[in-house]
């Protein structure tokens, strides 16, 4: 296999918090020992429930927050050791789309300014070239060139997400981290945005790290999928393999919890809540909720290992 576009190894992030009345230190284990690779032009889905660390992984890769340990290699460069100038250059090749298009666009900037901001910062175009490029980008994402002079509040949620996408495309990145890009949109608009993202990938060949809690959406867009639980990747496989034959009890439960029209099946309803990442359970962090846990699971942390060809699971009992 060719050299991946992005390779992440042993990534870790703890957020310190003050707890107790003497201010004793504790930390939230947000991301723990995460390995991930993304090939050029592919879509990797990152799924999990709230607080599992999926958004943090995206931000660590973009260096919007700093990681505590691990390696991030992007196009052969060590992202974690880049200085300010090199990091800025890197950001041209790595862009982000956020969940909430209402909060992520500056309300005081016109749409044209927001989309052209990257070109301006990186001094990539003269003012007239920039206008032309903005107009072109707006058309690429299915809007009108004349929208450039308007403000974000004049647009609907779906249109704002299109503007966010145009902004991410402006610098022709190789990787776009899309963090819940359709979660705040209605079903009929969600389909429009998903189609746009797939279409853009066909035209421009960038890779996506697609972060979402919605398994239906992730299945639809991803080539490979990583499932996170309490800061760790518990399963990692091609989309088909994962959805056809999940090899981790957590993934199995997640899949069976997704309501799906026209499906008759047995539902595994997990008992209990997701434990606090402040004090993750011993051994496998899923064992208190796991329907098949054995005694070993509470003692020993299962490694992510290849249980079938190109199918990785962090479960002592896999393969199933």
């Amino acid at each position, binding site marked *: 296999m060719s050299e991946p576009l992005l390779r992440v190894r042993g990534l870790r992030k703890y957020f310190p918090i003050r707890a107790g009345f003497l201010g004793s230190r504790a930390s939230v284990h947000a991301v723990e020992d995460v390995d991930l690779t993304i090939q050029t032009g592919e*879509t990797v889905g990152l799924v999990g*429930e*709230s607080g599992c660390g999926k958004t943090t992984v995206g931000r660590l890769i973009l260096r919007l927050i700093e990681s505590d340990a691990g390696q991030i290699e992007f196009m052969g460069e060590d992202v974690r050791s880049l200085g300010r100038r090199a990091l800025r250059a890197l950001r041209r090749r790595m862009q982000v789309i956020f969940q909430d298009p209402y909060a992520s666009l500056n309300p005081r900037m016109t749409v044209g300014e927001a989309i052209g901001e990257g070109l301006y910062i990186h001094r990539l175009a003269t003012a007239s070239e920039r206008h032309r490029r903005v107009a072109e980008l707006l058309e690429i994402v299915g809007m009108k060139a004349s929208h450039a002079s308007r403000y974000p509040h004049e647009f*609907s949620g*779906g249109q704002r997400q299109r503007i966010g996408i145009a902004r991410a495309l402006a610098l022709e990145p190789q990787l776009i981290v899309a963090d819940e890009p359709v979660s705040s949109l*209605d*079903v*009929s*608009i*969600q*389909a*429009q945005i*998903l*189609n746009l993202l*797939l*279409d853009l990938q066909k035209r421009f060949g960038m890779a996506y790290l697609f972060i979402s*809690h919605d*398994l*239906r*959406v992730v*299945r*639809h*867009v991803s*080539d490979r999928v990583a499932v996170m639980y309490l800061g760790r990747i518990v399963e990692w496989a091609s*989309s*088909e393999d994962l*959805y056809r034959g999940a090899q981790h009890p957590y993934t199995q*439960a*997640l899949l*069976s*919890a*997704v*309501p*799906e*029209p*026209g*499906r008759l099946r047995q*539902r595994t*309803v*997990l*008992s*209990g*809540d*997701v434990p606090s990442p402040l004090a993750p359970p011993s051994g496998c962090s899923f064992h208190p909720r796991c329907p098949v846990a054995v005694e070993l699971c509470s003692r020993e942390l299962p490694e992510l290992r290849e249980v079938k060809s190109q199918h990785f699971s962090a479960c002592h009992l896999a393969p199933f």
Partner: protein
Amino acid sequence: MSEPILSIRGLRTTFRTPYGVFPAVDGVDIEVSKGETLGIVGESGCGKSVTALSILRLLPEPPACIEAGEILFAGKDLLRLPPDELRELRGSRVAMIFQEPMTALNPVLTAGVQIEEVLEVHTDMDRAARRARVIELLKLVGMPSPESRLRDYPHQLSGGMRQRVMIAMALACDPDVLIADEPTTALDVTIQAQILELLDTLKQRFQMAVLLITHDLGVVAEWAQKIAVFYAGRVVEKGSVEEIFRSPRHPYTQGLLLSMPGETTARRTPLHVIPGVVPDLVSRPSGCSFRERCTQAVPICESVDPELASMGAGSSAACHNPLSAVGRA
């Protein structure tokens, strides 16, 4: 089929805005029977929540105004009930749970006190009896260690537990009708499954009628027996879940079903798209409000707003040019 316990006829709720008066709900007819779950689906702004809030008169009036219609519950029209009689009913015989339990619960009262308050208002139980009932209710909704949890404040509970407290409050007086407005939208998918399963069990056990409001067709498919699809303040299609998922007759329902990525959609291929966007209250087109996005539109759609008409098999659709019925496999 048994007589519906709750039926809404011709409900029209408007909002007064600086730009004029606009109907959020315009001529809605729905009904639900005991032991039955009616799923109400639609996209943001379609009027599904306004309908729910109109039932219990929970909308601020003004700007809202229930202009027409009747809401019949056990033979009484809730819209014509004097305020004190309505208050007696609200929270006891017709109860409601909301999407965001963090904002719906009082942050400065413990879970136990809030559940007990419902009993204090609606029953003549003494204090000891109320306490016992609170613990019984928390057990009923599957709250872990209820005796200690009742002393917790909402912020000390997880999202799933808060929703359980809300359900316990709603169930306190054995309601006949439970209105659940997006009860699981703020929850993770594994917790969503727990809560929906709980609601379903309780519905069967107490023969409640449940109005389940959601934007997620998957949720309706699995947990409801009847469905009403809302679009721009109207019911555009209703009937049994089985029938409507198998053979939708209204182009909007079909569009919604097809635009959902599911087990049968081919991966990484374009999803079906309903062109355009939902019209806002202010700029609804003449005639059928879906016609500008509709692939089936015919000239009459421009001038005449279609009425709900029977499509056979117990379902009805409001469409001049409905899709043909798909034969039973």
